[in-house]
């Protein structure tokens, strides 16, 4: 199986509002805990390690500044 990146949630606005509401009145620390529990529950539901790896990689994309590319070596010259 591959990670589905196409729209898959029937009512995205409803889902998004519920996700934000999930964190209402929680401290940042509590929110972090709820998010972690949510990730673990969903990850178990998905189960497929390839899908999980693809999702983890996609989640990290664009978050960190890209690492410096290694300088071209002499051997790769003209």
């Amino acid at each position, binding site marked *: 199986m591959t990670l589905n990146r196409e729209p898959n949630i029937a009512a995205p606005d409803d889902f998004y509002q519920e996700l934000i509401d999930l964190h209402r009145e929680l401290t940042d620390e509590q929110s972090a805990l709820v998010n*972690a529990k949510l*990730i*673990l529950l969903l990850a178990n539901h998905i189960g497929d390690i390839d899908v999980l790896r693809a999702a983890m990689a996609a989640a990290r994309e664009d978050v960190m500044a890209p690492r410096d590319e290694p300088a071209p070596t002499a051997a790769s010259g003209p």
Partner: protein
Amino acid sequence: MMTYTPPVYPYTKPVELTGSPRHWPVIVAGAGPVGLTAAIDLAMRGIDVLVLDEDNTVSIGSRAICWSKRTLEILDRLGCGERLVRKGVSWNVGRVFFRGEQVYQFDLLPEQGHRRPSFINLQQYYVEQFLVERATELPSAELRWRHKVVGVTPREDRVTIRVATPDGEYTIHADWLIVADGSKSPIRGMLGLESEGQVFHDRFLIADIHMTSSFPAERRFWFDPPFHRNQSALLHRQADDVWRVDFQLGWDADPEEEKKPERVLPRLRAMLGEHARFDIEWASVYTFQCRRMRSFRHGRVLFAGDAAHLVSPFGARGANSGIQDVDNLGWKLELVLTGMAPERLLDSYDAERTVAADENILNSTRSTDFITPKSNVSRTFRDAALMLAKRHTFARRLVNSGRLSVPATLVDSPLNTPDGEPFAGRMMPGAPAVDAPVTGDRGEWLLDYLGDGFTLLLVTAQPPVETLLRELRALASDPISCNSVLVGAADTTAKAGELRVTDPTGMLAERYDTCPGAAYLFRPDQHVCARWRAFDLGAVRAAIVKATAQTPVAERQVA
């Protein structure tokens, strides 16, 4: 009053200081559980072995306490498993607590039909004492106390060892030196060798307390308990109503301060309740490391146990893996010393046991990362898994309070003969034999029949025909002898030479996925090295050649 009085073993002035030194096939440095097990294994093979230890008693404090099923099975083979089991406390159940409540419990051995429990708890000093007493029964083993190795010179054909005693120093030679002198391994240092890896920035207080209590024999692990906030704690029952307590202290704790009774007592009272009555027998503060030597074989010097590899204590993978090291080494040294196998067979000791060490280090490091999260997000996920574990079974598999020691399956060992036919189950080449109940002359457990040299287990539906028996006798009289154990119906007529067992519960057939005619070849350390759906004399011989690192005859002719 202490529950245990350590023995004092006598120092004897060595013959080398009065007369001529003798040459030893094997010298073992270190009379801890690993060194003593090595000596017993070799002495039972009739190989003269000398053990040198700088001390004259057993371990101080309980230290290693959890002895795994595989360790007990190895010690059964060496004639002292029963004594450990009788003295020790058997347990299979573990409970995990998070903050104030239990989140789940587990049973390490949910299936029946095994002689030994998944673990016993027994103070290391008892294990060492029993091993010393077992070694002393064996004429081929000699133990020398207060004999400290101060120099090691490896040579092409022998190892020269300098030993210091209260009466002065002497020099002694051995064909092979087994270094089992512990985590700091002075000999490793003398040879300029290193053990590389990771130091964990955490400290733990361990204490042995004597207490009469109705707590059952279970492993109890607390994450962030009310009596020890933001840290972890572990409780184990040992022999003689001695309990072992581990408290995580954090990296900033002062080890000398934390050992003091005025610091230890309040922690224990908070854990055990104000009404608990107990005495502290021993307390120590430790840090830990996960590291190993790049190679466990350096010519004629072979490293084993903590000297070769170190893990965190979570998972009981230290002493247990050390005992598996020497279980792996003994039969190989015997074959090399008797000229039956080339020296390169000992390279497989390195190949097999470094892989096992990596497996232990990986498991141990993961446990440590769960118990001592190294970042806020790591702690958040840890707490999330623990909170979910109470209601959701899936999360229990994520909780890691120690992945308890199971022996490595040596899947990629160069000594294995790969399967030619499909088999189900876990008993693939490289796997340590799993036990099963049987009936027969030698005992009621399958493992009683394996480990006396190479052993072929052959499943027979019919009484075996004479041609088969003749071939099995040929195997038994080969230079590297292979015994046969026939698994069949109870009414097959017994014949001299082959051992017969029956499989009354069908567990053997199930665990080994056998069919009539199936054959399993076990190494002397009870690991599977080959298996077939049908017996073939040539195939068995070829598998023994492979398992003993001998060049096959065909290749030798080409060369």
